[in-house]
């Protein structure tokens, strides 16, 4: 069809359209991109096919990072599991393995995120959302009878990576060589914690920067199958960044980490293949798919142009994604099953490597077992029933999606340029620029919700007469007796260890933190092997490197 025919047809259609819809309001997506009512070859033409799309596993990577994508291997279904005590976790995980799971995932209690041992926290708060895990002894209980050399392990383990140190110490104790371990430090992104997730324990920015680099270089030399970096865009989007901003800020963070590694004398192709990413999937369906496709292109370009990567593995944008809890409603919670399914499809069509789907009741409480099972089933339905994995990048070539992917790419690049202009992500975070961007977008989104421009079913549209969320089953809080027993165990663990060895290794840790050239992470691992608790380790590091108060711009 010639362009002329298209132009004429479009003109006719536009007349018809505006006659029938005289009051059609302009629409924008969450990233503030204007959305037209129709897209045609005038917006995106397959002439641009090789330039914009190419083939899966090849530049420019729009269609996926591997030649076979989900036809070869579907994404890993990484449901975060966190139960109150190590024993409970172990029981649950063994069940899951019996049911065919081949990857582990651990989410610790909030007290662990804050760097506090169980004896320092009000017991009512313990184990409410994850495992209370403070020592190598706790880790041994979590992983009892589990072949850790055959399972990929995902740890929600922020700086200074004490859970990973516990895994390494446990492996040593049971004679599993470290080079047999595989897995990912899912929360190894201090920048994202600093700007957008104030759950996590943090060292001051500078200290975090150092410990993260020490971890990367230690693992590269000692545990090469481990992914030491997962750059977390999820927190920023949850905190209010638009999808395009979240992607741009995440890539800027990755650039910062990459530059820091280079400064440490590491070669890009030695660390980039182990960089991974972690994103939020909102319910803005096409926008999310475009976000992932555009992100893949931008990252491939960054690795080549900025880092001079030669190894194709360096340019692969491996990402885990999680359906967004922010989009879930407390009202009519079963509706969330539909929302999670739609978010999940966006993750799959966006080409994810790994996914977590939320429980429908997450706006009510920590997920119940029933909700957790439904969310696993949702993934299975999407994977095995819906035919979503039959075709690679199934929506590729859609005029709309390709246009949107290009536009998202521009927005992402604009954010990256803004951060570049501020001197890179580290400085942009230190100065509060990033927090400002996120805060403004959060307010803007909230205003759209308040005004009803952004509709949420059950909240500002189709509001039910009665709040039917009441009397719904929620996850009960941990049994206080079980918790008391756990605290007792913790105390006797501390009593029965070699105190002198603990003190010696903690002193060495402080010394390493004071020095400029010793590897702090190596000492974190050593101290853990010597039975130091995570609270003790973190206290030492806080003393030496400072506590990272969140930057709060009121």
């Amino acid at each position, binding site marked *: 069809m010639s362009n002329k025919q298209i132009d004429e047809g479009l003109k006719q259609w536009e007349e018809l359209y505006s006659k029938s819809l005289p009051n059609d309001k302009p629409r924008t997506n969450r990233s503030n991109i204007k959305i037209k009512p129709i897209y045609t070859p005038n917006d995106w033409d397959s002439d641009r096919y090789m330039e914009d799309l190419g083939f899966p596993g090849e530049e420019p990577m729009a269609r996926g990072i591997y030649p076979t994508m989900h036809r070869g291997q579907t994404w890993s279904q990484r449901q975060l599991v966190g139960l109150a005590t190590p024993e409970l976790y172990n029981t649950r995980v063994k069940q899951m393995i019996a049911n065919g799971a081949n990857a582990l995932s651990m989410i610790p209690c909030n007290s662990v995120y804050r760097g506090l041992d169980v004896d320092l926290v009000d017991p009512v708060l313990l184990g409410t959302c994850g495992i209370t895990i403070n020592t190598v002894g706790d880790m041994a209980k979590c992983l009892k009878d589990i072949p850790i050399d055959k399972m990929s392990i995902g740890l929600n383990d922020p700086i200074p990576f004490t859970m990973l140190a516990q895994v390494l110490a446990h492996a040593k104790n049971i004679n599993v060589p470290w080079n047999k371990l595989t897995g990912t430090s899912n929360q190894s992104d201090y920048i994202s914690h600093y700007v957008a997730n104030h759950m996590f324990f943090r060292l001051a920015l500078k200290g975090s920067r150092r410990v993260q680099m020490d971890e990367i270089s230690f693992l590269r030399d000692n545990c090469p199958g481990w992914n030491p970096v997962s750059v977390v865009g999820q927190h920023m989007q949850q905190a209010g960044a638009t999808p395009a901003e979240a992607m741009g800020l995440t890539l800027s963070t990755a650039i910062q980490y990459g530059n820091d590694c280079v400064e440490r004398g590491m070669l890009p192709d030695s660390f980039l293949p182990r960089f991974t990413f972690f994103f939020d999937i909102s319910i803005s369906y096409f926008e999310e798919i475009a976000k992932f496709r555009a992100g893949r292109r931008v990252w491939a370009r960054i690795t080549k142009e900025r880092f001079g990567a030669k190894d194709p593995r360096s340019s692969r944008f491996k990402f885990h994604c999680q359906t967004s809890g922010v989009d879930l409603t407390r009202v009519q919670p079963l509706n969330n099953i539909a929302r999670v399914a739609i978010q999940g499809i966006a993750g799959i069509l966006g080409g994810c490597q790994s996914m977590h789907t939320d429980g429908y009741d997450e706006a009510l409480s920590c997920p119940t077992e029933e909700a957790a099972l439904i969310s696993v089933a949702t993934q299975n339905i999407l994977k095995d029933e819906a035919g979503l994995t039959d075709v690679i990048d199934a929506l590729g070539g859609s005029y709309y999606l390709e246009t949107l992917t290009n536009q998202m790419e521009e927005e992402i690049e604009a954010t990256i340029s803004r951060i570049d202009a501020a001197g890179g992500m580290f400085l942009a975070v230190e100065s509060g620029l990033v927090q400002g961007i996120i805060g403004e977008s959060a307010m803007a989104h909230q205003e759209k919700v308040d005004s009803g421009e952004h509709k949420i079913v059950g909240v500002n549209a189709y509001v039910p007469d009665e709040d039917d969320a009441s009397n719904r089953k929620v996850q009960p809080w941990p049994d206080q007796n079980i918790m008391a027993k756990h605290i007792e165990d913790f105390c006797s663990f501390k009593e029965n260890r070699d105190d002198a060895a603990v003190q010696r290794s903690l002193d060495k840790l402080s010394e390493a933190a004071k020095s400029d050239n010793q590897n702090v992470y190596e000492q974190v691992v050593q101290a853990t092997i010597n039975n130091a608790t995570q609270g003790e380790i973190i206290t030492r590091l806080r003393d030496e490197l400072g506590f990272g*108060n969140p930057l*709060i*711009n*009121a």
Partner: protein
Amino acid sequence: MKAKNDDKPWLVRLLNGERTVLAKAISALENETDEASTIISGIYPYIGKALVVGFTGSPGVGKSTLVNSYIAGLCEEGLRVGVIAVDPSSPLSGGAILGDRIRMAAHEHLENVFIRSLASRCHVGGLSRATARIVDVMDAAGMDVVVIETVGAGQSEVEIAEIAHTKVVVCSPGLGDDIQAIKAGILEIADILVVNKCDLPLAAHTVRQLKSMLSLRDESPEWSTPVVSTSALEGTGVVELTEIIKNHEKMSSNKKEGYGKGKPQQRVLRLLANSAADEIKKALLQDKSEEISTICDAVLKGEMIFSDAIQRLIKGSLPCKQ
């Protein structure tokens, strides 16, 4: 300070430094309730002990963070510290988010520290209208040092000069506009200039810039304004700053006249003058007498010059004199 036998119970409790009484008294003063003048008259016999230090400077230069590090040293010395942190009110809604305290969290829990956040309530001059009185009530409640952090609007900060004994003007490195603002006004009031965030690049340059600007200024014989670099985040330079504030205090309390710790007369005089001015204004505006309109007409026609008219209004025609 010790209460007298006939003092009212609230005053005794206030003088004992009871936190809740102090807080309620501040609210009464801030809201100018009926009780405010009782409080003022009650406390005046007991003021004049505290050192009042003002921190001013453009938004975001690190005033709150610096106050936090400054009071750390004071607490170690066992001093009682009151902090008044003023943040701007929204001109649209009249509401405010008071966030200075966030950066002072290190001392929040200490018994010796009392922090009060105030909204400017659209009072110009970088303070809230009641600030001077709130300083007095903190003084009476036994604070050894009262620290005031201003809004940080830049140029209109001169009001702090009337309240604080020692004025610390804070700026941060490499901000061209900031320097302009300082040039334009608040340099005049600075007893001490601080270049904060000296951990950032360009700090030394800013220090040089400020020093050369100061060299153009007439120095008083007793005090030549020092430029201190600090990093409130890392704690560098804060001990030095504390020392200099002490020296300034010594210098100004050695001076016979003027304004300083232990010399509340000046403070009361200013307060009286301000209030008297308000009173005169109100009286004049309400005055419908012949004479007033004659004076106004004369000024309008150009028959009487402005300064003469003022003299006549004050000396001759003031209705409240009767």
